[in-house]
């Protein structure tokens, strides 16, 4: 830690102490430091529940190593953003969480990834994927009705109760912030929806499986700014119930929606930090160069 960083930390400590001393004192200024700082302080006080933990994780496509010794935690009810230049391994790492890499020929993983403390390789992949949902860059609704898109997964799990399914459609579409727009055409094709609506349908479809974690790989990069804003607001709401990991190339999106940011380069995790810290005081030079656009 350099001298300036030490001073900064000392100020933060002093602020925190002054803050706790002044508790309940109406006279003090309402805002001491940015809200981001206050939030970060709280974070330090309450230990967070770890949902996923990667330790010494390596991934190979054939003979090429795509991920190098990744050590990282994913926290419950938080949004974690993965950022980094194209090809750095964000999608590859994301696919580890639902074991989608298992389906790729020649792909091999070493090290450990634990879900709720359990090695994910010991969990039935089908079960794992019902707990860990994925939303892709290109909205990919099934070529069936809006309603059937939602009920398809639960039906495959053997749920037949029509009343339950009817309610599930309403609830999931509400959670996907789509219900009011489609409530009169639940039986029409999902492919007739706009791109932004399709993406929200995909989120609703994911939510209908009652997952624990939602993975999103550049979920808004095919959408216009308004549709993007709706999805971002939705993510903020969803994190109250779910743990979210989002890959994004849009750094403003990362600052808007995420609590933690992980920055990758060439298959390595360069820095992991609270998002507000990461974008204001990155610790690594490579991170600073990347976010300030001086990366070459």
């Amino acid at each position, binding site marked *: 830690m350099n001298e300036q960083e030490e001073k900064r930390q000392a100020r933060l400590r002093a602020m925190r102490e002054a803050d706790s001393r002044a508790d309940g004192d109406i006279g003090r200024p309402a805002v001491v430091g*940015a809200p981001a700082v206050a939030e970060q302080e709280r974070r330090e006080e309450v230990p967070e529940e770890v949902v996923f933990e990667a330790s010494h994780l390596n991934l190979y496509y054939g003979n090429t190593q795509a991920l190098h010794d990744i050590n990282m935690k994913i926290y419950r009810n938080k949004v974690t953003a993965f950022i980094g230049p194209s090809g750095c391994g964000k999608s590859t790492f994301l696919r580890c969480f639902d074991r989608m890499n298992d389906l790729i020929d020649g792909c091999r993983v070493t090290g450990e990834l634990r879900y709720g403390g359990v090695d994910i390789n010991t969990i039935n992949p089908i079960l794992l994927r019902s707990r860990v949902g994925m939303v892709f860059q290109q909205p990919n609704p099934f070529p069936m009705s809006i309603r059937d898109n939602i009920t398809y997964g639960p039906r495959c799990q053997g749920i037949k109760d029509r009343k339950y399914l009817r309610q599930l459609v309403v609830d999931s579409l509400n959670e996907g912030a789509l219900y009011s727009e489609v409530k009169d055409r639940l039986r029409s094709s999902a492919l007739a929806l706009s791109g932004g609506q399709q993406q929200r349908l995909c989120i609703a479809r994911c939510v209908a499986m009652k997952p624990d974690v939602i993975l999103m790989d550049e979920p808004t990069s095919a959408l216009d700014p308004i549709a993007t804003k709706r999805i971002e607001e939705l993510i903020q709401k969803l994190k109250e119930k779910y743990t979210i990991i989002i890959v994004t190339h849009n750094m*403003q999106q990362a600052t808007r929606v995420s609590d933690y940011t992980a920055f990758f380069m060439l298959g390595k995790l360069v820095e992991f930090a609270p998002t*507000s810290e990461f*974008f*204001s*005081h990155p610790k690594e030079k490579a991170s600073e160069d990347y*976010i*300030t656009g001086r990366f070459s």
Partner: protein
Amino acid sequence: MNLDQELKFIGDELEKMFSLTREFLRRSLVYYLSDGSERFDARIDDAMVNACERNVEAWCLSILLREKVYAADLRRVTGCLKLVTDIERIGDHARDIKDATEKLKSLGTSQGLDRAATQALVDFVLRMYDDAVRGFVRYDVALAEEVASHDNEVDEMYEKLLADLIAKTKDGVVSAEYAIYTSLVYKYLERIADHAVNIAEWTVFIKNGFHKDTVII
């Protein structure tokens, strides 16, 4: 222009403002401290300072509009946007001192002037401003912190001069008009020191994100 060039342009414009206001201030104070009928050397005015301020503001805002700035860049742009106001104010006070001096000269007397003590305050304030500027230009946080630490000393010098002036007024050594305009000059000097402190504090912010005792980002 890329971002680095734009940041350099803003820095250059601020330095131009520094030297304009510094020279403006020097001339005002020479005028104030002179005892004869010297005329004010009026080749600099605050319109030039204001034009620089507009440039700095316009560039900072245009960067914020076009670019998404993070980390050190964000602190630099917002810090400059804050401290440009302080430089501009110092320019205003240079003009204020000149105006007050004109009033004083029209009274036709300088017998109440405590030259040594006033000169001491003037030197002290000018050094603070110079150091604040050097701290900013060289990115020297230690120097900036030192400038900020001199706040109280200026206040003490100011209080003492003021008390002295009050005593002289009560004793009838100086007229009420003289006392009022002189106290204004003291006040402007004290304000200039405050702005120098602000510049120093924003320099610290640009470097590490905290301002006074608060971590802003």
